[in-house]
């Protein structure tokens, strides 16, 4: 129902986005992060900001879809979708009415590495809102009617993904890249696996995924450290410890070359890339900076310049480091008219080769440094954004003072370091192209 056209589309870069956000944190935040140690043994990062009477709270539970049995693919996602659908004495409708009566916003989401809670609630009724969140985390009901309803919605979403060229491209790239590892699967499962899930499977997934020893907590807004400590303990201290082990890491396995997927649409969607950089790699920041020059989702990147501005071959193109907890890739996305596909592939290969051979110029390095460091205050865009960033940063293993060192680290990267990274990251021979749609060959 769009009534508005945007000048530049946001790129649908689903994977590894959390990391990108945190890695893009500019330095010397003028926000003051307080580490809150709770009596129950949890650590939460808090930015206390009492000018608006509400709190934003984000909690990540590590594990996500990666810990599920392949035979039950999608169980963590379905379980997560049911966390707000009835808990304790409240069925789905009563729970929703209770939430609305408090004007609390409580949402859960599942990804390949985490199950996440994102909540906002008013100072006025904080305790009652916390009670609802606690109920959702501890005592989900998994009522049969709610399970069927949410299952049908998940199946519908999978059906739509099955005919969406962007989703097909992402899924096929992941499958080629990571094979049988959990990262190679759709975290929402398959129509068959989701159809087969029962109440026992959901309860087991809840027991496995919502545990007290794999949590990362960020909070921002109108709450004191003591009150936050009490709130966190109340929400989490009685959860069980994790029993299901986290999976091993996975290498990048895709064979270079073009992998075509037939699809009948007006455009061809291309997912491209190869192996990436581990997020714990000491040079990760250099990779992040180099990618920002090459294809970070802005105007003025090399890819946007050569494909959009100079030649009008696409509406948008970008690249991103997808560095998850268990494996990594370096990817990009572009869609174009089928007749332009051969030209687009040639340009991508040439741009890749140029980065590998020559790296970035001093001028580009200077400009991207200015951009990244200047963008600093723009990240901390309200309580909701701050809570989310802080939970992600902890999940990714950043220190609490990282925010205060980051710009200096960006500024300290020398041209040699950046170009050593370019030579290491970009490998034109290794490029994998997943092409969904008409290959354009017959238009040559």
């Amino acid at each position: 129902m769009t009534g508005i056209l945007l000048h530049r589309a946001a790129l649908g870069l689903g994977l590894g986005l959390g990391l990108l956000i945190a890695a893009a944190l500019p330095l010397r935040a003028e926000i003051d992060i307080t580490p809150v140690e709770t009596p129950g043994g949890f650590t939460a990062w808090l930015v206390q900001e009492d000018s608006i009477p509400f709190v934003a709270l984000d909690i990540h539970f590590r594990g996500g879809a990666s810990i599920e049995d392949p035979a039950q693919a999608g169980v963590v996602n379905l379980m997560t979708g049911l966390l707000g659908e009835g808990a304790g004495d409240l069925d789905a409708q009563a729970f929703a009415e209770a939430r609305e009566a408090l004007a609390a916003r409580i949402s859960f989401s599942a990804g390949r590495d985490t199950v996440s809670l994102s909540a906002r609630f008013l100072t006025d009724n904080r305790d009652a809102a916390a009670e609802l969140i606690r109920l959702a985390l501890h005592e989900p009901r998994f009522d049969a009617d709610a399970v069927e309803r949410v299952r049908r919605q998940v199946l519908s979403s999978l059906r739509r993904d099955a005919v969406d060229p962007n989703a097909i491209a992402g899924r096929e790239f992941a499958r080629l890249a990571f094979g049988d590892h959990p990262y190679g699967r759709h975290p929402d499962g398959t129509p068959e696996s989701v159809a087969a899930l029962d109440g026992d499977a959901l309860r087991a997934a809840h027991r496995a995924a919502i545990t007290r020893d794999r949590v990362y907590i960020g909070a921002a807004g109108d709450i004191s450290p003591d009150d936050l400590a009490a709130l966190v303990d109340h929400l989490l201290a009685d959860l069980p410890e994790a029993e299901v082990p986290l999976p091993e890491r996975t290498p990048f396995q895709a064979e270079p070359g073009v992998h075509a997927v037939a699809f009948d649409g007006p455009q061809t969607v291309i997912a491209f890339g190869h192996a990436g950089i581990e997020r714990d790699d000491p040079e990760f920041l250099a990779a992040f900076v180099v990618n920002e020059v090459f294809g970070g989702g802005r105007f003025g990147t090399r890819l946007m310049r050569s494909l959009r501005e100079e030649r009008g071959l696409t509406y948008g193109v970008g690249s991103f480091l997808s560095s998850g907890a268990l494996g990594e890739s370096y990817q990009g996305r572009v869609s174009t008219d089928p007749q332009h596909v051969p030209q687009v592939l040639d340009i991508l290969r040439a741009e890749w080769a140029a980065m590998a051979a020559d790296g970035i110029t001093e001028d580009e390095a200077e400009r991207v440094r200015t951009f990244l460091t200047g963008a600093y205050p723009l990240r901390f865009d309200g309580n909701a954004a701050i809570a989310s960033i802080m939970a992600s940063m902890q999940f990714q293993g950043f220190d609490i003072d990282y925010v205060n060192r980051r710009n200096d680290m960006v500024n300290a990267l020398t041209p040699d370091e950046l170009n050593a990274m370019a030579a290491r990251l970009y490998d034109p021979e290794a490029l994998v192209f997943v092409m969904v749609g008409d290959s354009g060959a017959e238009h040559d």
Partner: protein
Amino acid sequence: MFLRFSLVMLLLFARPLWAEPVSHFTLENGLEVVVIEDRRAPVAVHMVWYRVGAADEPPGRSGIAHFLEHLMFKGTETRDPGEFSAVVEAQGGRDNAFVSYDYTGYFQRVASDRLALMMEMEADRMANLSFTEAEWLPERGVILEERGQVLESRPNAQLNEQMRAALFQNHPYGVPIIGWRHEMAELTGDHAMEFHALHYGPNSAILVVAGDVSADEVRALAEEFYGPIPPNPNVARVQRPMEPPHLAERRLVLEDARVGQPFVSRMYLAPVRQSGDQSEAAALQMLAALLGGTARTSVLERALVIDAGIALSAWAGYMGTARDYGIFSLGIAPADGVDLQEAEDALDRVVAEFLDTGPDEAALERVRVQIRASEIYGMDDAQARAREFGTALSVGLTVADVEGWLDALLAVEAEDIMDAARMVLDRNQAVTGWLTPPLTDAQQAEVSQ
């Protein structure tokens, strides 16, 4: 991602805004200025809104408002193509632009001490836009690719385009903002410059600045950078063709193999928010919230998704912030095994029951609680508040209307909602669209009956 069911329309309540200082003044050259203070972070959003959009295009040149918006990034008499965005980036900022039927907007988010530079550049392209064929020709390729990506690759966007074309029989709200492909392909840089010369100037613009700024600072900067630009004498409200009486229901079916989830969508022609009297629009907004504003507890979701189990989702929405016409919409995505006719019938049955019984007072109260809370949550997002002012002022509403919108919503009583429902839910003023994978012959026969 869970439940990213894009069809569910979320609450569309306006964010209440009076809680933080809002200033409003007009420069001598006609530039209207709104300043929203939010001192929590040293950031500012700088937006210029022109009161001109796709509904003001000359016949045969659909898409020119949007094409011009792209070309606004292609340089001025003294700035190179792409320089605008490059400078914003060099300041660590972000910029973008957008086009709707009634307005075109340009904005940057930057550290608040960079505001002067943003104004200098925005004022420059307001007055001195300049580019060559080397810029506009590839950019026309970009907008054609954009149409391919955001419209032609998405059957639900295509259905929406077809439905609007059927809903509006005479008014340009029926022409797509991005343009019809055959007309876009003929657009030129001269057409864009002509549109700029006719419609862009301080006297057609609204400046909205939100963030770590004071009204006095903004006034001084606006006087310095925008003040010297003379009013554009060409600027005049385009007389748009208006709708004749609608006498017959319209229906259409879009079949496409790329449809993963079929659904039924209906658009009713509706009134818009009127400056000085927003009560009818407020009642329509409350009607949409009660019928389909929330998952699980709204009338449609409860009856069709939870109780009857025949839908995956059902929704209602109201878009009333527009210059000429609003749209009230309903929709249903059926569960597996339920065909679109059954789904549409069930939707209509539930709406008819609602018209009989009226709103549940407890449900109405829950909606009011959400509205009051949105005042608090809304303060967390200065950019959204800037957008709300820009949109409203662009379509002819006033600062007082924006600040009074929440009260207008809270003043709505059950009887007002019923009156609004009886007025708007007229199938003769509506178009119903089905989105479906290719139908079998038997289904076809049924549809055509």
